[in-house]
């Protein structure tokens, strides 16, 4: 056999992703769409935490900025959907550069608190800025449209989102093998060693935050067009925390892990709906178990099983 397990895995995942919506109803399409949207956020944590070793519990802020920037540009300025989404990413990226500034000085808990403050600040400003954002009433967002054709169903929107995820996953993969990406990982492994190799810490930390914020901004923009209505409650502290949780549970060093994280965040509330508030216990326990026993996230478990199956089938043939 000349094919390796990674290629087979990737093709398999792709086929599943393409075939998934068939046989589902409107609600199924909607859930699948949210999986893609969350997975993009998860990718952004692959860059920020997985490669850069930075932390953020303020990603709801970037998500909100992307969502509002896109929605407002489409509603008030008449931008086409795709341009609006791009603008959402860019606005979030600009703020990403701003949030990187404290990261150049503080790490760990302090950085976490700084990013948290940022998200609360963004949420509050969007809420108070009533004439622009609609404040309490919120903002209606038109359906996504491609080249003048409105995507009425989440079925077709899902494929747009899937394409979006694949493009960003591709970029993430390229970045991971690029010199800049590897320099970023070098800084995570040993800052002193990296700097003594001529790697500029500030530049790379800023790139990590900008990239991560850009991805999350894109995701937020796409989410706004899926929901059809924005209000600032959507971008609470709880969202920031569940983003972080999903990224860790899925796996911070893998694009497939990002997908798994997105699926977890979209599906768990559906599956555990009956448990109501007790859900939080399950989330907490899953997170602790993951950090304790699966530092590579759920994806590392999948990979292990995949390898085992591969080996036994190889041995049998």
């Amino acid at each position: 056999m000349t094919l390796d397990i990674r290629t087979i895995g990737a093709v398999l995942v792709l086929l599943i992703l393409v075939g998934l919506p068939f046989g589902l109803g409107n609600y199924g399409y909607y859930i699948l769409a949210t999986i893609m949207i969350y997975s993009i956020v998860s990718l952004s944590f692959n860059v920020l935490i997985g490669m850069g070793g930075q932390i953020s519990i303020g990603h709801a802020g970037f998500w909100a900025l992307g969502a509002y920037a896109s929605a407002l540009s489409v509603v008030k300025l008449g931008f086409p959907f795709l341009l609006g989404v791009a603008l959402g990413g860019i606005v979030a990226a600009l703020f990403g550069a701003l949030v990187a500034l404290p990261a150049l000085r503080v790490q760990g808990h302090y950085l976490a608190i700084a990013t948290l403050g940022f998200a609360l600040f963004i949420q509050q400003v969007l809420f108070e800025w009533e004439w622009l954002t609609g404040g309490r009433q919120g903002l209606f967002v038109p359906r996504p449209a491609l080249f003048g054709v409105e995507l009425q169903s989440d079925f077709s929107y899902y494929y747009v989102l899937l394409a979006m995820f694949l493009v960003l996953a591709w970029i993430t993969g390229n970045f991971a093998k690029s010199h800049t990406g590897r320099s970023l990982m070098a800084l995570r492994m040993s800052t002193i060693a990296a700097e003594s190799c001529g790697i500029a810490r500030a530049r790379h930390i800023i790139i990590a935050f900008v990239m991560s914020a850009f991805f999350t901004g894109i995701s937020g923009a796409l989410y706004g067009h899926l929901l059809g209505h924005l209000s600032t409650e959507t971008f609470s502290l709880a969202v920031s925390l569940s983003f972080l949780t999903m990224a860790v549970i899925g796996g911070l060093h893998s694009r497939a892990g990002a997908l798994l994280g997105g699926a977890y965040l979209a599906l768990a509330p559906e599956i555990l709906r009956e448990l109501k508030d007790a859900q939080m216990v399950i989330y907490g326990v899953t997170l602790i178990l993951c950090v304790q026993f699966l530092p590579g996230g759920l994806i590392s478990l999948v990979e292990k099983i995949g390898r085992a199956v591969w080996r036994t089938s190889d041995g049998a043939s």
Partner: protein
Amino acid sequence: MALLEISKVSLSFSGLRALIDVSFDVAEGGIVGLIGPNGAGKSTLLNCISCLYRPENGQIRFDGRNLADCKSHQVAALGIRRTFQNLELFREASVRENVTLGLAYRYRSPLLGEFFDLPSSRAMRRAAEDEANRILKTCGLSEVANIPVSELPYGLQKSVELARALASHPKLLLLDEPAAGMNPEESRHVAKTVRRLRDEDGITVLLIEHDMRVVMTVCDRVVVLDHGEKIGEGSPAEVRRAPAVIKAYLGDEGVHA
């Protein structure tokens, strides 16, 4: 001409004076040994040169350029590379990756090219990889190129750190105890390597070392520090005879004995 000029450098840590008015030059193409008892301030001085610490007083000039406003990564780009007493490696990464990262900054391509993996960026990566492979070969590390550094024995890890420092063809190499933890045969090999770097590649070397055999055989000048002060400088033979040096190493009895 002096490649590195250290003039009246002082630094203290919360009252403890680690360096007091230290001055000396390192000539281009020279091998200078920095010796002294533990806590004499040798590593502190190296950290000042590589801009990890900033001297409170005095000046360090490299190639005629004042390093006062340099950041540590800029110093590296100027051509000063170093190794560390306790090894600073990218432990989870392979040997090849460690060496490649040592020269990656010189092979940078525009960020957008890297995002989309354009041919220009791929060519840069290949060029860096080729260069790294060349270095690995000359350093005798080709066999272990794909092994994570953390799985190598200590001696090889030191070689990797040296290879990484050499990867970018530095003008000045700072070595912090290159022979520490090595047996006599390995120490001789280190001494030979340092000489070869100077003779064949024209690299100027400033090294801290406790192994006197290495210092005496390889250095053409030796600077002695004690309690943050320079107490001697000269050829290895001169330094060995200087009373102040003997006193610092052996105590008062040594001088009279």
